């Protein structure tokens, strides 16, 4: 799926600045995190494996082939705002391996934002105060999303923290917001969540907040949400048939009026 970016990076590097390992044009630009020397992704990963093979306990760092600086990660997949990090020798051992679902979520971050906006109507979500209805799938969705973004298994503390911020920001001062335009509420919530997530997600925070909004707006459980998402992107959904995703969309249309009716009752806990 990264074909295009690969080709462009290969041609832009040219022969004038070749990969120090293969001496060819750089394929999939990758940088060591301390010295920022640049290599092909496969070249530098291969080299770290060779170095690891010499040790019974592979070190968690690699010396730069050019300057000998010790580096802990390989930065790759930089697309202008976000990037991926390959931790040296963290993928051979006990460490967390992304499932297909995690990978699909990660791939979503490489698509154009807004591709799914018309399916999950965010403005209706805010206008109808649908956010006052607790979303019981949110915690699982958050865990998977943050696991995928950080490529780490144990994200409980971060999930707990962000979930807390989301819950409190969605429900607090509801009286005050009731008179205001829904956009104010929307902006305030997104700013609060963004602040909470930024220390952990960095450059991906903005997109994460957008994805979160879409998930909340969808009102779907995770399977149905995934099916609708992947159908839109034209990806094959793992284990979900197209019928299931049709069901999912039906479910959504029936859910909204239900929430709308109860809208006035739910004044929030304060």
């Amino acid at each position, binding site marked *: 799926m990264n074909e295009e970016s690969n080709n462009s990076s290969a041609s832009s590097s040219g022969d004038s600045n070749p990969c120090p390992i*293969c*001496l060819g044009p750089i394929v999939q630009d990758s940088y060591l995190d301390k010295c920022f020397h640049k290599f092909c992704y496969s070249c530098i990963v291969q080299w770290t494996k060779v170095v690891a093979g010499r040790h019974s306990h592979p070190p968690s760092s690699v010396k730069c082939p050019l300057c000998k600086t010790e580096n802990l990660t390989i930065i790759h997949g930089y697309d202008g705002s976000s990037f991926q990090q390959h931790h040296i020798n963290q993928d051979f051992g006990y460490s967390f391996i992304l499932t297909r679902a995690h990978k699909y979520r990660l791939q979503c971050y490489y698509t154009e934002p807004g591709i799914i906006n018309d399916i999950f109507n965010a403005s209706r979500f805010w206008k109808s105060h649908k956010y006052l209805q607790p979303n019981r799938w949110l915690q699982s969705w958050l865990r998977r999303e943050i696991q995928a973004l950080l490529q780490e298994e144990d994200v409980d503390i971060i999930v707990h923290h962000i979930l807390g911020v989301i819950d409190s920001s969605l429900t607090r001062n509801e009286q005050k917001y009731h008179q205001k335009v829904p956009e104010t509420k929307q902006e305030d919530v997104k700013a609060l969540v963004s602040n909470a997530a930024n220390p952990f997600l960095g450059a991906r925070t903005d997109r994460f907040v957008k994805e979160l909004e879409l998930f909340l707006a969808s009102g779907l459980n995770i399977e149905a949400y995934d099916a609708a998402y992947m159908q839109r992107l034209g990806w094959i959904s793992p284990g979900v048939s197209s019928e299931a995703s049709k069901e999912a969309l039906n479910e959504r249309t029936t859910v909204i009026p239900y929430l709308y009716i109860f809208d006035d009752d739910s004044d929030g806990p304060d």
Partner: protein
Amino acid sequence: MQASRARLFKEYKEVQREKVADPDIQLVCDDSNIFKWTALIKGPSETPYEGGIFQLAFAVPEQYPLQPPQVRFLTKIFHPNVHFKTGEICLDILKNAWSPAWTLQSVCRAIIALMAHPEPDSPLNCDSGNLLRSGDIRGYQSMARMYARLAAMPKKG
């Protein structure tokens, strides 16, 4: 395998282009085998090897550049870090300190530097190492110069 060929071919092209740039090194690839190379290097000036031309043989492994090339002197040389009989070279970058960013050309440069700066504390040639370690610089230099004259210089009429 394919990667090492591609890389050696790049080095070959680079060597053709740079031939004039470094007059101290002449690197040639074996006609039939891109994994076998020969180099002629000039003995560095202000050393006992000055004026000599030394021949090196490269055997490049299929995992190159992830594994270092094997290099040895074909020309007899009296140097603490070169085995007197086999020509084997004791040089860290050809072993643990190898980096795939080295090229055959830069390995030649490292060997020239080693000729100018012997490391008598890790000797492959103990006689040579002992002379330097005991402070007999003159003894080492005479021996080295003698062998350079015998083996690395054209015979005078």
